């Protein structure tokens, strides 16, 4: 086992009362004041996250577009400079290697932001499929990522001293400079709220974190750990790699067909086309508990007394005050309104299939 890594903000977290846990090979704060308080803070005002564990892989060279088109399922030809795109990368089997964001910096230059858990695996996969005319660089170690998410995130970001005026919309990004630090500022996130992500050299992460707090002191900005990051994404029905999507699940089963472009060639296309033609056997659903009890990953899902699947993610939604979960069930049970039961310890607890997202943030301004 490799030594657990620390992000450049490790000491900052400890000083702020962060409870550090090992996650995907990194020591990360799971919470500071408490998951519920941090969760609600992101929904009501804003929260700041250290996501420096995530992987940043840069792709450049004249064959970049061709190369990436083959690797990912979505169509990057529709990306303009300064725009980002959500996609997955598949194996030949159609199983998911990772889900990621692709940022088009300029023609023939891209940044891929991948899950911490998968950074090494994805980079190896990319190297295995490398073609001449393309260069790839894993810059995860030297790159820090700080996210500010929540309805007040725009106010906070605009109060920072950026060199170039900030005028990016959802899923856009720009190169910028803050107090002399070069960075990439993106309007992306994993919470469902308006939000920004700032990529910068690791050495400056602590300085930026502190100056954001100094600027944002009247906004109620709180540091948010991985615990609330997980409950926030669950309310949105976003998949988490390793739980809801894996190499054993396909994007079709996971409800991610919107990130697949069948009009181009990519690894896994054949398998996915076949699966589409034959019809899906199972689908990732969202469900809400009708009775008390909280679904957790690996709890069994039943229908009419028979085991039909497993929970992949679950929690108590603090916004909805209801227990929610996700899991794979046979397609015939995937329709909203369908009754299922979750085996919670010794009891069968009734649940209903519902549409995702579980929660829609009030307004996301541009």
């Amino acid at each position: 086992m490799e030594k657990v890594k620390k992000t450049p903000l490790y000491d900052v977290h400890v000083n702020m009362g962060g409870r550090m846990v090992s996650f995907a090979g990194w020591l990360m704060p799971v919470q500071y004041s408490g998951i519920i308080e941090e969760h609600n803070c992101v929904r009501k005002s804003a929260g700041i996250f250290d996501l420096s564990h995530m992987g940043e892989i840069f792709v450049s060279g004249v064959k970049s577009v061709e190369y990436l088109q083959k690797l990912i399922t979505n169509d990057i030809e529709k990306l303009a400079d300064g725009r980002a795109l959500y996609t997955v990368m598949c194996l030949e089997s159609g199983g998911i290697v990772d889900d990621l964001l692709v940022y088009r910096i300029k023609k023939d230059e891209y940044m891929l932001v991948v899950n911490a858990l998968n950074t090494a695996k994805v980079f190896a996969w990319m190297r295995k499929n490398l073609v001449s005319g393309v260069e790839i660089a894993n810059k995860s170690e030297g790159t820090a990522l700080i996210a500010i998410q929540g309805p007040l995130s725009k106010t906070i970001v605009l109060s920072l001293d950026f060199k170039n005026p900030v005028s990016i919309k959802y899923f856009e990004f720009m190169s910028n400079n803050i107090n002399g630090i070069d960075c990439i500022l993106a309007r992306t996130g994993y919470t469902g709220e308006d939000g920004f992500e700032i990529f910068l050299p690791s050495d400056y992460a602590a300085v930026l974190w502190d100056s954001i707090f100094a600027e944002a002191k009247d906004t109620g900005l709180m540091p948010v750990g991985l615990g609330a990051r997980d409950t926030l994404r669950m309310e949105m029905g976003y998949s988490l790699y390793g739980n809801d999507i894996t190499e054993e699940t396909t994007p079709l089963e996971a409800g991610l067909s919107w990130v697949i472009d069948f009009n181009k060639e990519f690894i896994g296309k054949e398998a996915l086309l076949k699966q589409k033609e034959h019809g899906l056997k199972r689908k990732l659903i969202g469900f809400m508990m009708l009775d008390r009890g909280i679904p957790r990953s690996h709890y069994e899902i039943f229908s009419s007394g028979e085991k039909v699947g497993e929970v992949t993610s679950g929690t108590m939604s603090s916004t909805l005050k209801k227990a929610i979960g996700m899991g794979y069930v046979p397609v015939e049970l995937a329709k909203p309104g369908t009754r299922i039961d979750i085996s919670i310890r010794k009891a069968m607890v009734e649940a209903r299939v519902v549409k995702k997202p579980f929660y829609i943030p009030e307004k996301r301004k541009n």
Partner: protein
Amino acid sequence: MSIPKDFKYTFSHEWIKIEDDKALIGVTDYAQDKLGDVVFVELPKVGTEIEAGHEAVVIESVKTAADVYTPLSGKITKVNTLLDKDPSFINSGPYGKGWIFEIEIRDKRELEKLIDAQVYENKISED
């Protein structure tokens, strides 16, 4: 971490407050801190007979579900129904408003297995 001196404890982080032939049971400050925000407590039924060492209660936090074992055998005489309305009392007052159930002690010899505050403190400082 608060550990009241006049309570008894278990190595599985329950506290026991003994009043004559009854005992009030809850989880320690250390336990609630490890669990994080409690969102649901599955209380036992009043009148149930339970055996020492068996699971009596389930506490669900945002992060995880944890069993609470009864360190004593006997009949459950009271449960803290306040926890149905506000399970976070486990976090805010583990030794007070967050008490979980009361049991009628069947066999006083079981009390000998309980540990005192000092032993418990030593135990959690090792963790």
